[in-house]
């Protein structure tokens, strides 16, 4: 079958002063009709640049300097803006990561989809309305007539993404480019959207270029896979081959870094309970003086959980499930309305502000965002030393201890004098971890500590956490939306939905014999659940010795 879209030795130059001279170097790809080609890579691999180059939407200062992009024989790189306008939407459809920012908040969904027809066709408005309704029906939006009249903020994230897909497919383009279309979505919604893209692609015979960083998604949807690393195409082939028998060392390392969904054999934890959460509730109240204007959100409803000493309790759930609120109650960033949080024999929930400040040395938190969680105006060593200094340590000793902690979390002890912006995301997360460990806490609460990291860095940080837990006897509460990560690191798992803990138990039991229907639905939605990553020992070794493997990934 001949290719519908051919990228032929494409080279894209970055502006001077960027971290490398070329965003893409000699990339050649073919996209055939009626197939899904997944382009996989970590951040900075050039996968989004590839999409940008095809659509003629490269950022300022970035330019294709060599190669060709042929759409049914026509070289897109030679076209001017007006000609590209005719191609975008009509012959190449696009879906973006964040449907909320890709849609105009001031216009209805129907208007925006209809605009596709107004720009590219001469249909009358009554015909357009009928076509829009058909499209919305095609993407299985509940109540298409209402969705047509709705504004973007009135739809849920998944429905907005469905509307985006409807818009992308409006003119039946033969090529669809999807740039991380499910990354911002919850796992159950993601499963539905992936299914929808698959279904529409098969029905219409569209060629889909699907950009993602997630090998689970690749396993779920791809016919063929192209793996990119730092602007180079390192491996390409049928999905089955690449996923199960990767050839290039980078692909092997990436796939080895994907946590398998099967939990490892459980480790023994003592029977002693270190953290006991009983009947904790938290509600948010919003708005008006009058009772009827008030909106009450039950973020956490009567949560009961226990954490054994030396164990790891995973709290999993989708966005809005209340898992972060519960974590913030544990460290008293939020004050729970009811219930007790017993650490040893102290009830954290009933401490005064002043007592809690002293108790912070016993329970510490690691945050999600490696960029926002470190004060940009303080040196890394200072950030780690801060806690002990507040709790009465002398400055010299705290700074000396910071150096030891840097070594403990795998950072160069001489880098304590550097500022946060000089570190990569994974390194910053290590600094955050060192900061939490500096106080020698009994319990560590980690709120999505790896969800902002690339998969290879994520694997390293997870390994570090597991290692520290063993060496320091840490007890940990681990908040995550990623069931794969939870399977690997948690001894016990609690599943939260709409503020309630719907299921709690040993990890192996929850994964193999889930009791609650929601847990079952969550597990059934994990992308690529039927694919077990082949763990090639050499790749794991390569990842374990991270410095040697690829220092830039750290």
């Amino acid at each position, binding site marked *: 079958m001949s290719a519908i879209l051919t990228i032929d030795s494409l080279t894209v130059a970055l502006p001077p002063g960027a971290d490398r001279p070329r965003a893409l170097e000699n990339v050649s790809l073919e996209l055939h009709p009626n197939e899904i080609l997944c382009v996989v890579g970590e951040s900075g691999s050039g996968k989004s640049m590839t999409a940008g180059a095809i659509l003629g939407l490269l950022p300022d200062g970035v330019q294709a300097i060599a190669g060709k992009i042929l759409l049914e024989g026509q070289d897109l790189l030679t076209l001017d803006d007006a000609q590209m306008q005719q191609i975008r939407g009509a012959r190449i459809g696009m879906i973006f990561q964040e449907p909320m920012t890709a849609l105009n908040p001031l216009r209805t969904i129907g208007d925006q989809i209809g605009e596709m027809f107004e720009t590219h066709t001469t249909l009358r408005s009554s015909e357009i309305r009928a076509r829009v309704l058909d499209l919305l029906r095609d993407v299985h939006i509940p109540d298409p007539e209402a969705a047509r009249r709705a504004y973007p903020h009135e739809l849920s994230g998944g429905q907005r993404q469905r509307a985006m897909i409807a818009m992308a497919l409006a003119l039946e383009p033969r090529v669809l480019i999807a740039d991380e279309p499910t990354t911002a979505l919850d796992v159950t919604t993601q499963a539905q959207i992936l299914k929808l893209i698959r279904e529409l692609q098969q029905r219409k015979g569209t060629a889909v270029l699907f950009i993602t960083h997630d090998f689970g998604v690749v396993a779920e949807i791809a016919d063929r896979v192209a793996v990119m690393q730092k602007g180079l195409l390192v491996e390409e082939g049928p999905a089955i081959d690449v996923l199960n028998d990767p050839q290039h060392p980078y692909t092997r390392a990436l796939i080895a870094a994907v946590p398998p969904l099967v939990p490892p054999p459980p480790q023994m934890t003592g029977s002693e309970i270190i953290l006991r959460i009983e009947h904790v509730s938290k509600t948010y109240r919003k708005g008006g003086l009058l009772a009827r204007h008030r909106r009450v959100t039950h973020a956490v409803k009567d949560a009961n959980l226990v954490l054994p000493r030396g164990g790891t309790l995973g709290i999993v759930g989708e966005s809005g499930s209340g898992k972060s609120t519960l974590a913030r109650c544990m460290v008293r960033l939020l004050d729970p309305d009811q219930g007790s949080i017993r650490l040893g024999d102290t009830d954290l929930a009933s401490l005064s502000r002043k007592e809690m400040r002293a108790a*912070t040395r016993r329970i510490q938190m690691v*945050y999600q*965002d490696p960029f926002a969680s*470190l004060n940009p*105006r303080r040196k890394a060593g200072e950030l780690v030393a*801060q*806690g002990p200094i507040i709790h009465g340590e002398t400055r010299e000793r705290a700074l000396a201890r910071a150096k030891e902690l840097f070594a403990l979390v795998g950072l160069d002890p001489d880098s304590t004098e550097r500022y946060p912006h000089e570190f990569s995301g994974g390194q910053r997360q290590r600094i955050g971890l060192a*900061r939490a460990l500096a106080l020698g806490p009994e319990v560590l609460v980690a709120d999505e500590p790896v969800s902002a990291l690339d998969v290879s860095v994520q694997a390293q940080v997870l390994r570090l956490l597991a290692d520290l837990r063993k060496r320091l006897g840490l007890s940990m509460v681990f908040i995550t939306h990623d069931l794969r990560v939870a399977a690997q690191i948690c001894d016990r798992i609690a599943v939260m939905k709409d503020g309630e803990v719907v299921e709690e138990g040993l990890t192996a039991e929850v994964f193999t014999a889930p009791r609650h229907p929601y847990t079952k639905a969550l597990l059934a939605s994990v992308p690529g659940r039927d694919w077990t990553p082949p763990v090639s020992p050499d790749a794991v070794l390569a990842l374990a010795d991270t410095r040697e493997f690829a220092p830039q990934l750290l």
Partner: protein
Amino acid sequence: METVARLAKSPAAIVGLLLLFLVVAMALTAPLVFPRDPLGLAGRPLQWPFVNSRFWLGTDTTGRDIAAQIFHGARISLLIGIVATLLAITIGIVLGALAGYYGGLVDDVLMRITEAFQTLPNFLLLLVLVAVFGSDIKTVTIAIGLVSWPASARLTRAEFLTLRSREFVQASRTLGMRDVQIIFREILPNALPPVIVYASVIMATAILLESALAFLNLSDPNVPSWGNLIGTGRSVLRTQWYVSAIPGIVILLTVLAVSLVGQGLNDALNPRLKRR
């Protein structure tokens, strides 16, 4: 350091810095160049500039040396500008930080007070203060500071509103830090750049406010300020216009210098904004 390097690259900032340097040099050298009392009688009144070599900028209506008053006036204007600005941004930062960090009732109360100050024309308020507390140079400076803080309070509050939800602030709390420490040592350094830039606007306005007061003969008559000189020249504005024009031009240049430096600082502290 990076900021200084970027500042040195902006032509506007360099012009501003040069002008400002000249004003500072005038202020510093005033007692050496004009050792006599600048308010003392020096010669025949109303001599035009560049006529008598002893008084190269001429004399005013009472025969005082205009050049001497300009040099000594630089000290007064700079002093008023700096002290009033420091006072204004200190008040503004403290109130804005508390309002932005605590939110809720504290925010409501502090912002209503700020709005009360903002809705009154600040020159009118200044006139009232000077009328009540007298026009001694110290009182005038403090009064200018007191009417100039609301905008910096709003600016600081806006910065705090976005910064307080950042995870590093939460991390400071979970480390057991006190609120005062979090506000002034963790958040404030991150919130300062736009406030510092705005300080240049306050400084320029402060110098203008003092001149305006002096023009109405409401500033301290016992100090050689540029405003006083303009006020003196008011009665002879149609014939001997240079008496008012010379200090007027000096004020214009000084305010321009401060604004240019402020603009340069803005570009240097927010390099991303400039590229747009």
